[in-house]
């Protein structure tokens, strides 16, 4: 399963990169969303999949899945939500102020800094 996941993760990263390299702000944001999914799955896969039961002591099993990647991912999920929301509003404001979501047209001009 880990090998399958490695390829799934690779494809997620590939799509994310392609989207992030495009001009439209919305596509860039969707790209970051995909990228974080890929990263989360990568962390989970690194720790090994489906070993032992869920990491709850109440299960009283002999072995548990590694809880550390899960804790890391949980933090990452929430952070990526915050970042995505921030991006989204940034794009939204830029769109409203400037009437475009094309990053090439958002560049501003030389000497304007």
């Amino acid at each position: 399963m880990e090998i399958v996941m490695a390829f799934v993760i690779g494809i997620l990263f590939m799509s994310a990169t392609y989207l992030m390299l495009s001009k439209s702000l919305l596509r860039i944001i969707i790209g970051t969303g995909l990228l974080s999914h890929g990263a989360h799955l990568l962390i989970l896969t690194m720790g090994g999949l489906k070993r032992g039961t869920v990491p709850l002591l109440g299960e009283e099993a002999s072995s548990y899945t590694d809880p550390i990647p899960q804790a890391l991912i949980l933090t990452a999920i929430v952070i990526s939500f915050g970042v995505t929301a921030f991006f989204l509003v940034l794009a939204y404001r830029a769109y409203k102020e400037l009437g475009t979501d094309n990053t090439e047209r958002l560049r501003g001009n030389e000497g304007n800094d």
Partner: protein
Amino acid sequence: MKTNDLILQTTTKVVLFIIILFSFHIFFAGHYTPGGGFVGGLLTSGAIILLMLAFDMKTVSQILPVNYIYMAATGLLFAGGTAAGALFFNVPLLTHAFGHVDLPILGDTALHTATIFDLGVFLVVVGVTMTIIQTIGEDE
């Protein structure tokens, strides 16, 4: 966003309480079973968002006149306070204390300062999510 969806509104009225109660359950049970401040907070905000979809933002902010930014700040204060509070007991930062207390009706209850920390997380998550949704929704 003005909708007039009777079915959604009626369902929401019922479902809302279930979701909120469930989110509280998940929050408190978090130390033993899946859940905790993050999920609990997100579920609660999900419930409020559902309310906003069913009715409209003005109505909801009249029902729940909460300043969500203050809510997030309070949450941070809770979490930070629990963390720093440990210093006053001569133990390193973020050391939690726990114990069992016999309460009149509930019986033997486990009390844990981590719950206060988690409550901070809960408040921050609700505060932040709702701030985001509300500011965007009200813009126009």
